[in-house]
């Protein structure tokens, strides 16, 4: 069988997720035995024409030229994968969604008239059909590996549906919400990261989007009992995954 032809695209993002491919390092050479890189601007000058078997999309669509580009990518790739929080949920690009865009453009650029941007940012499935999602900011390398290997073997990858809390408990951490009154979203956020942030003492900020049975309204109630004002809780939900339906519910539950 021919090696599958892979394309890695960058949209509005920090390039940290595509970096995870390069961060495979020694495994990268093994991986290259099984796949063929056809398009990956950060890693190679080689550009081969489409079609591609699998397209990994990093980044959100935030401006008109990216909308055109994502629609073209959809046509060019048999399987389209949203890789990382920007492509999946919009990540920090969506932070601009909660303030008037004109005000923000003016704050940053001397000549706002040159700036061509959408008022709001979303994950790529706002514009095109997406075949698979690999969550996280950045994506977890173990999960990315699992995805690539399973796909090569034509198996369904095991991407974890449970909450970050589950993994945090497995790591035997003390609970940041209970111990430190942290604004931890671990109970409503999809796991798969190994609870890396709470394990290092940082409350979960929901970069992986909601888990399957998230109950954000209940968490809002808990935060209130801990003494947090509603506008602080709302901002917590309107953070890395604020445009997902579940986190929107959390934000809307705040007055």
């Amino acid at each position, binding site marked *: 069988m021919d090696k599958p032809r892979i394309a890695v695209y960058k949209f509005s993002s920090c390039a940290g997720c595509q970096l995870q491919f390069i961060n495979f390092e020694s495994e990268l050479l093994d991986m*290259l035995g099984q796949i063929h890189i056809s398009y990956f601007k950060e890693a190679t000058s080689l550009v081969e024409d489409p079609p591609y078997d699998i397209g990994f999309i990093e980044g959100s669509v935030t401006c008109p030229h990216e909308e055109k580009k994502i629609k073209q990518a959809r046509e060019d790739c048999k399987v389209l994968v949203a890789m990382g929080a920007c492509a999946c949920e919009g990540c920090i690009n969506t932070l601009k969604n909660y303030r008037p865009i004109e005000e923000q453009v003016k704050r940053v650029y001397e000549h706002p008239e040159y700036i061509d941007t959408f008022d709001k940012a979303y994950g790529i499935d706002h514009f095109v059909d997406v075949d698979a999602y690999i969550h996280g900011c950045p994506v977890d390398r173990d999960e990315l590996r699992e995805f690539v290997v399973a796909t090569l073997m034509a198996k369904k990858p095991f991407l974890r549906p449970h909450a970050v809390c589950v993994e945090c408990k497995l790591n035997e951490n003390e609970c940041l919400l209970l111990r430190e009154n942290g604004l931890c979203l671990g109970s409503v956020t999809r796991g798969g990261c190994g609870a*890396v942030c709470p394990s290092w003492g940082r409350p979960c900020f929901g970069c992986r989007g909601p888990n399957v049975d998230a109950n954000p309204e209940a968490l809002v109630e808990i935060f209130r009992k801990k003494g947090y004002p509603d506008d602080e809780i709302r901002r917590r939900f309107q953070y890395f995954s604020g445009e997902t339906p579940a986190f929107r519910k959390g934000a809307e539950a705040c007055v």
Partner: protein
Amino acid sequence: MSNVTTKKEVNVFIDYLARCEGETALRLNVDADGEVRHYEVKLFEPPRFFEGFLVGRKWYDAYEVCSRICGICSVPHVISGVEATEKAFDIKPGKQTVMLRKLANLSELNMNCIVRIYILGGPDFLGVNSVMDIAANPATLDVVKMALKLKRLGNDLTDFCTGRETHPVGIDVGRMLKLPDKHKIEPLLERLKEAKEDAWKVAEFVASLKVPAYKRRVPLLAIHREDGYALNYGKIKSTSGFEVTPYKHDEYISHKHVKQSNALFYSIGEGQSFMVGPIARVVLSFDQLSPDAQKMARKYWGGPEWFHENMPFSVYAAHAVEYMHTTDEMISILEKLKAGMDESEIMKEKAIPQKGQGFICTEAPRGLLYYTFKFDENGDVQFADIVTPTAHHVHNLEQDLKHLGPSLVGMSEKDATMQVELVARCYDLCCSCSVHCVTIKK
């Protein structure tokens, strides 16, 4: 092949520069007589409005979000954000916290040297498209294996002290959230000592690369301090003679919107472009490099003057020298950590916000990085300003294109394009970073 019989105009257009972080386009037009008619660097990375959307966010979001400015240099972004916040809140971090941050910065810079030499820049000089091609050649596979091994070590060190190699977790305002696992120190030290041997091979590899003859000397700017190789906490020093406390930077470094390009052009003096980053650090802080890094620089390249004289292509040699230096300095930090770590600094309470403004200037791998945060009494962001190394560089890269132009007359389009790419990649442009200089033509 070059057409030597009839000279014709040179038209270079690169719509999306490869092996560079983010999206850059370059355009250069030179007529048959060698007169440069048009030169332009365009970063078409879409704006993400960090300084816009940070306003109204909580202080603890600000530095966490700023990590996401750049995946490759997330460590200096987080540290700069944290330190600007500390300035605003009048918090002084403990000695060990500062040392662990330094370790994080060094590990990231160390990893970046390898990425630049072997993955982003190196393939150019071996006539191949990518590091994958270098690995595909059995004669050079071992070179790639060593590079990937060294890169993993840099990443493992960032992971060791911050919890994650991309977007570090454990760095917080006034404290580290967790101490590194002491059982990992000894194995990391062993690997670092092995890497020190490998560093000489890195230097040999860089010295063997056939770089183009093009060179152009311009002033260099970097943070400098007498008592160590500065990555933060120092003065901004320039080869043109000034040395100033960082918050006075705008008295010496100006920027303006230039019609011809629409980019923000950073200059010193009367519109003089300059360079920041590895060459600037090596030249300005040569005496602060570790003994072996100095020895390496002298053995292969003669000394600091060579780096200044042979810019921009001396950048790869500067990466090799910084690889040695960062390896040495990390060894000494790990030796200190091995002797014992102080638990009290991680037991500190979460920072208490206060109204105020903080400014900080640090060295990211690509050079000077400024952060300004202003908070109200609740710790909500009122103002944020971030100036990245790449923002400093656009002006000088355009000047390089202008100076390079005449030498391209008579070359084939392919060769001329390659020359422009090679020069541009010396700058290691980081477009995700350069929220300040997005240039979008109407």
